[in-house]
């Protein structure tokens, strides 16, 4: 599965084909709680629930999800930040380096670019910044972030698109 063979790319095959054996030992996990989902829904429309705060920062892309997707205005320069937090479920003492694959249309950075853990269940946060000079209408650009400690490979697809919503 790659973009050359599948025009739908990540909107076709998602984060990849399921691999249960590897999934048992992922190394790091992205977690979101019930409250995180409520906050995300409130950020879409703060009249959705009575408990939605009046002013809410962030948008749905900020949900601590293992994939990162955002729609940007066509032919407009953009800079988008994805805040994420991972929990160490692999080796107690581990050090992960980030690896980004990207094309010429977008620039992807992760800060910090490495994560160190001293024990299991510890959490570390980072921010992925995606910037570009503008994408044509009805297009999408794929990228990915992989955290690697030499044993585990924790991959997140990143998608920036200008495809308009349809009902």
């Amino acid at each position: 599965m790659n973009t050359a063979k599948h025009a739908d790319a990540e909107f076709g095959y998602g984060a990849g084909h399921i691999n249960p054996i590897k999934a048992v030992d992922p190394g790091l996990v992205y977690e979101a709680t019930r409250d995180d989902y409520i906050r995300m829904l409130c950020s879409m429309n703060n009249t959705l629930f009575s408990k939605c705060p009046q002013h809410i920062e962030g948008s749905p892309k900020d949900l601590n999800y293992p994939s990162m997707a955002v729609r940007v205005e066509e032919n407009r320069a953009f800079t988008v930040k994805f805040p994420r937090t991972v929990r160490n479920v692999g080796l107690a003492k581990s050090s992960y380096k980030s690896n980004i694959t990207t094309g010429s249309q977008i620039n992807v950075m992760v800060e910090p670019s490495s994560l160190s853990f001293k024990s299991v269940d510890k959490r570390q946060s980072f921010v992925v910044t995606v910037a570009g000079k503008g994408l044509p209408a009805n297009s999408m650009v794929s990228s990915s972030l992989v955290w690697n400690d030499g044993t585990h490979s924790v991959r997140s697809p990143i998608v920036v698109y200008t495809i308009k919503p349809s009902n």
Partner: protein
Amino acid sequence: MTIRIFAYLYVLGTTEGVAKCCLLSYSIVLIRYVSGIFYLPQPDISAPGVEILAAYSPVASPSGNADDKRSVKYNVVSGTSMSCPHVAGAAAYVKSFHPNWSPSAITSALMTTGIIHFSRSFYTSCFSLAYHMNFIC
């Protein structure tokens, strides 16, 4: 995988890749505000969903033709309804190793370990499916 989420979240399955790769069906998460004015697709996960031996209603026509009066307990069918149980089974498999993990942790484990690069033979072999999901045997 979004079994315990909210009424406002929809799971959209797509099978657009089927013609190109005969053994997969695909699903993504589509989050849509209930009035239909907001939508946010996010890449999720793929699982086998084409030509799957599945339980089948004995009162339904196995061919879909109303004149077909046969009754079968199993049928070979395709679609996200066949893909979804593979993901549910894989989630249960992960949970059997980590009973305390949250649904989101299991989702993450499945997504971040997904296979994205297949060999050419994978594309051309329609029957290697069992091999790729062979985590029980």
